[in-house]
């Protein structure tokens, strides 16, 4: 088996926007979701603060909410697709996402308000992209609002919101540049129901954010990068795997070299070897992908 895992999904790699297929009623049936129904003007009077309480993040903005509506309108991909968004769907969506990205943390209240209105009729791809934008925000208050939202969702166990809950750890990892320790692929952890798994994630993220409350993303990344470089050749396979896993997104060339070096070690268990093979594949793809962007 390629990976015998119960990995903490959202934590696997930074910037992973994850859509679940397996452990829940699937996300909406069609990608053609309407934009949030509440118009900006009207929405001021019917604000919902759950699961995301954005009251500490400033005011919502009508112009930004129009851009969010564009994301809902343009970021469409059938969640039952096996392949995921096509290049055409991605390109169409990216135009809308780019506009929202330049707003920075100012977009947070409006985006979180929009996510509060998500239900089964919403497009998973639009939600995925909105969370991608949130993931780019290096803002301590936004972090707190997001992790509190994750905690709320996992307590309430609303299936309509599982689509969000499943992706939030990836969003948080993108925001902070690092994640709490993840399970390694060869862990023999018992599988639980999907909400319990998410609650465990929420707890781990709550502690992680508290421990890093005063640090910027750059500081957090710097610390973890140093540790990863120290551990990448550790004789403790789990420590080495976590270190290389961290390096994959930040420094894929370095990660690839480290994974290859580890794979040359004698006597690796096949499960362990598969885990490092997976990291090697990820690093190779990212190296190729970056060449493409530069080319």
């Amino acid at each position: 088996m390629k990976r015998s895992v119960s990995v903490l999904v959202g934590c696997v790699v930074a910037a992973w926007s994850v859509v679940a297929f397996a452990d829940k009623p699937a996300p909406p049936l069609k990608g053609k979701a309407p934009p949030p129904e509440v118009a900006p003007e009207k929405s001021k009077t019917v604000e919902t603060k759950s699961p995301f309480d954005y009251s500490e993040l400033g005011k919502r903005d009508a112009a930004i909410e129009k851009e969010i509506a564009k994301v809902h309108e343009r970021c469409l991909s059938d969640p039952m697709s096996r392949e995921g968004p096509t290049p055409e769907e991605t390109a169409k969506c990216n135009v809308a996402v780019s506009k929202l990205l330049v707003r920075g943390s100012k977009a947070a209240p409006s985006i979180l308000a929009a996510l509060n209105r998500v239900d089964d009729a919403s497009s998973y791809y639009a939600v995925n992209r909105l969370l991608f934008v949130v993931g780019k925000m290096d803002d301590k208050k936004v972090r707190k609002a997001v992790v509190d939202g994750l905690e709320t969702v996992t307590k309430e166990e609303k299936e309509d919101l599982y689509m969000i809950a499943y992706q939030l750890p990836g969003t948080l990892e993108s925001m902070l540049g690092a994640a709490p320790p993840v399970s390694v692929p060869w862990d023999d952890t018992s599988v639980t129901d999907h909400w319990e798994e998410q609650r465990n994630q929420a707890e781990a993220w709550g502690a992680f954010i508290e421990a890093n409350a005063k640090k910027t993303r750059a500081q957090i990344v710097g610390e973890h990068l140093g540790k990863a470089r120290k551990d990448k050749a550790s004789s403790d396979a789990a420590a080495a795997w976590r270190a290389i896993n961290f390096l994959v997104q930040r420094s894929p060339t370095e990660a690839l070299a480290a994974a290859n070096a580890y794979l040359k070690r004698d006597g690796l268990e096949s499960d362990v070897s598969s885990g490092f093979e997976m990291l090697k594949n990820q690093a190779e793809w990212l190296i190729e992908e970056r060449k493409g962007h530069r080319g």
Partner: protein
Amino acid sequence: MPRPSAALLFFAALMAAIVGLSVSPAATLGSDLPELPGPAPRARSEGQDPAAANAACEACHEDIAAEWRGSLHQEAWTDPVFQKAYAIEPVAFCRGCHAPEADAREAPGAGAQQVGVGCTTCHQQGDTIVGTKDVSLPGVHAVRGDARLATKQACASCHQFDFPRSKGEPMQDTLAEHASSSLSDVACQTCHMPEVVDEDGRRRRSHDFSVISNPELIKSAVSVTAARGQDTELLVELEGARVGHAFPTGDMFRRLELRAEALDAEGNVVMTAKPVHLARRFGDVSGAAEHPVPTTRRVEVADTRVPPPGRGTRKAVLRFAGSTSRLSVRWVVAYQRMDHAMAASFSVDQARDEIVVARGLIPPTPKPKVSP
């Protein structure tokens, strides 16, 4: 026991055995072809009608044709659930395996649709009829031996392939799972094309490729033990039994659903545990971080299925809201081809479609005896 509707068994077409030869799919029709998982497009004679060509085999090999007819290989294209999925993504990537008798660059004609994965798919190479060994049939036709037909190579092209835009990321991983198992030296055909004896006493391989249509085969794939854990817990452990790959395998949406209920002395359901699902999970990974709006690709992010034999067990915990020590616990492990929402969307009656792999009843914990 719920029985799968034969009309809705599309995914098993990807799970059953022999599909095509391991010839390079693009080898004969030019370099502009997309990379396909399947044996198509094939080098058929100009103007050959797939249905007529296949019918020529069926006419003489009636017993084998009867097995194949109604199999998921034959219904690879026509199966209603496949058609629902194909409507979402009508791409050459799917056609390669689901209509291998047609050129995958175009929508298949009626003949190729009707044949699905047919006799000719595996047994015709160009104008030559092939089998597992050389056979001379004077006055009929010759059979050229191709040993690959008896090996996993015959299955590989449609049962092991990557996401089309994520090289190195398997959408289906069955052959790799098999290779990593303790049964890697046992051919797929051993289980999925078992030996049968004809009326005339001739031994040959079955061509019904039954998997999901054979609940007994599915049930034999895994052994399950369940026991009480702490007061509110049911611990379930699953291990591959008569299976040569992870379980479930094949299509990315297949899963096992573990359910449990606590019953009072009258058999009334008092509590229901939250179900646990054993499956592959996928995510859309963003690409280069420095790019403002990176591309994404789909990858597997977790795999909680039952590992292939020789690769350990899978443990799961089902939790009840309260203590079950004074209650019976009834548990079920069910094989499902997709989650409930997808089943509803595809008009699949999940309750009828699933296969119960194992079930059991754990009696209440006896009250401790009090010493006089």
